[in-house]
């Protein structure tokens, strides 16, 4: 059932992207998600950026409503749900695209000291869409890319990954599906974990809407091993 939490703090982190600090934290594994209900508005899944932190892009009516909430107002949250990342590898890369940053931010913050070297490769269309938060505190290196060259290298994060893939023994990725497909291809579906997205409704493996081949994103994922996705993504 829902836990009712209050908004402790909200702030803008990029264009149309806001961070929401909650009054209560959730035990979670990086990569897991929660369902957020606004009574009378709707209910949507969001990846946890930290036990008490959501980082959300305004994309429609639900998120617009969310963006209007002030500190002290309530959210109804159930979860966390799904399969999170598994900690593997010593020298790892986090590959994020656009609003794919929250689960990787969580991973960096949770496990930063468990890896020998952590490289974040983060791309967005433009500088003002990069939602970096304070991620530089948790990773060893940050490489930015933008489609328009307004920050970091002009190009895609997968360009960087392709060049440097030999440096990494495990890659963790979250972002638009095209990017994920490129990551899987670069990694040949090995030593890679990706956070998948499908239209999710119940969040708990009932309705079947979020199927990805034979898998359910909400239960078998959202984190999948590359090897599971051959022939599917």
């Amino acid at each position, binding site marked *: 059932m*829902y836990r009712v939490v209050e908004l402790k703090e909200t702030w803008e982190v990029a264009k149309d992207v806001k961070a929401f600090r909650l009054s209560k934290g959730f035990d979670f594994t990086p990569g897991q998600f929660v*369902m957020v209900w606004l*009574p009378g508005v709707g209910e*949507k899944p969001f990846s946890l950026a930290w036990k008490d932190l959501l980082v959300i892009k305004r994309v429609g009516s639900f998120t617009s409503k969310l963006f209007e909430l002030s500190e002290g107002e309530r959210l109804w949250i159930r979860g966390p749900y799904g399969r999170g990342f598994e900690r593997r590898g010593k020298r790892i890369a986090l590959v994020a695209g656009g609003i794919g940053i929250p689960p990787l931010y969580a991973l960096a913050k949770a496990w930063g000291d468990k890896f020998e070297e952590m490289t974040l490769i983060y791309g967005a269309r433009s500088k003002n869409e990069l939602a970096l938060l304070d991620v530089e505190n948790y990773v060893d290196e940050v490489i930015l890319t933008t489609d328009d060259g307004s920050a970091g290298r002009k190009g895609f994060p997968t360009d960087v990954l392709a060049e440097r893939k030999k440096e990494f023994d495990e890659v963790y990725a979250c972002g638009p599906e095209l990017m994920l497909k490129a990551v899987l291809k670069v990694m040949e579906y090995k030593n890679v974990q990706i956070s998948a997205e499908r239209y999710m*409704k119940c969040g708990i*493996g*009932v309705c079947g809407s979020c*199927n990805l081949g034979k898998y*359910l994103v909400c*239960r078998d994922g959202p984190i999948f091993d590359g090897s599971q996705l051959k022939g599917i993504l």
Partner: protein
Amino acid sequence: MVSLEVELFGIRFENPLILASGINDKVPEQWIRAHEEEAGGVVTKSIGIEPRKGYDNPTIVELPYGLINAMGLPNPGWKGFLEMVEGYTFDFPLIVSIFGGTPEEFAFLAEKLSDVADAFELNLSCPHAKGYGMEIGQKPENVYEVVKAVKDATDKPVIAKLTPNIDDITKLGLAAEKAGADAVSAINTLKAIAIDVYARKPILSNQVGGYSGPGVKPVALRAVYDLARTLDIPVIGIGGITTWQDAVEFLLAGASALQIGTVVSLRGWKVFREINEGIRTYLESEGFSSMREIVGLALE
């Protein structure tokens, strides 16, 4: 090793545990997965005439003893369904669930989907879609008309899925039997609601929904017991089956086969293997050589 095989209306099921309609059964890949995970058969999500998006979230409420859902019969419509299954073949019985607003709609769907379905299950019992399901299926005369129309439209076996939201479910079962149904399945979900004490509103966007899971088992078992005592056609037991003991209770109460759904969400695909294994061990240790031997033993 004892046999868990079931033969129902001429169709052989490897074991009695069929995936119930509405649980992870939207696409063929999921049906195949269910069988890989040791489901004896699969019932599809309910298919109607037109595509339906279903209701907005929240569509589900998690309770300590089950779930309340109001999905709103999301489905691709019969045309979309036929496109979706194009090119697939299945090495397990595929039961297609259909819903309509009139006997004619049911019959139309059965006719259009007869090449795909090994059998049909008629959704006469969904408790949360206006004009469909339970709103039709609470009246014995409607059950009769729908079953009859479908039987006239297809040669495939027809299962009437009954609602427990009724004074006496055997009235519905008798109507289905009289109209020529090959089996009945029971129960669909119970009418229910959940309210959030801080929102002070019903949680579901549809306000009310259908209750399933462990908490409905005693009601479901009673429905199966009453139906099995009354009908000559087989009864497929559904409702809150969560452990092998539950499964055995349903078999003893007269169910010839079983469907499980909510437990697949609660405990994962592995429950098919676990419950089958539990039934097998029970049969062996109690001295039975096949599942069929225990069907209805508690009716005597």
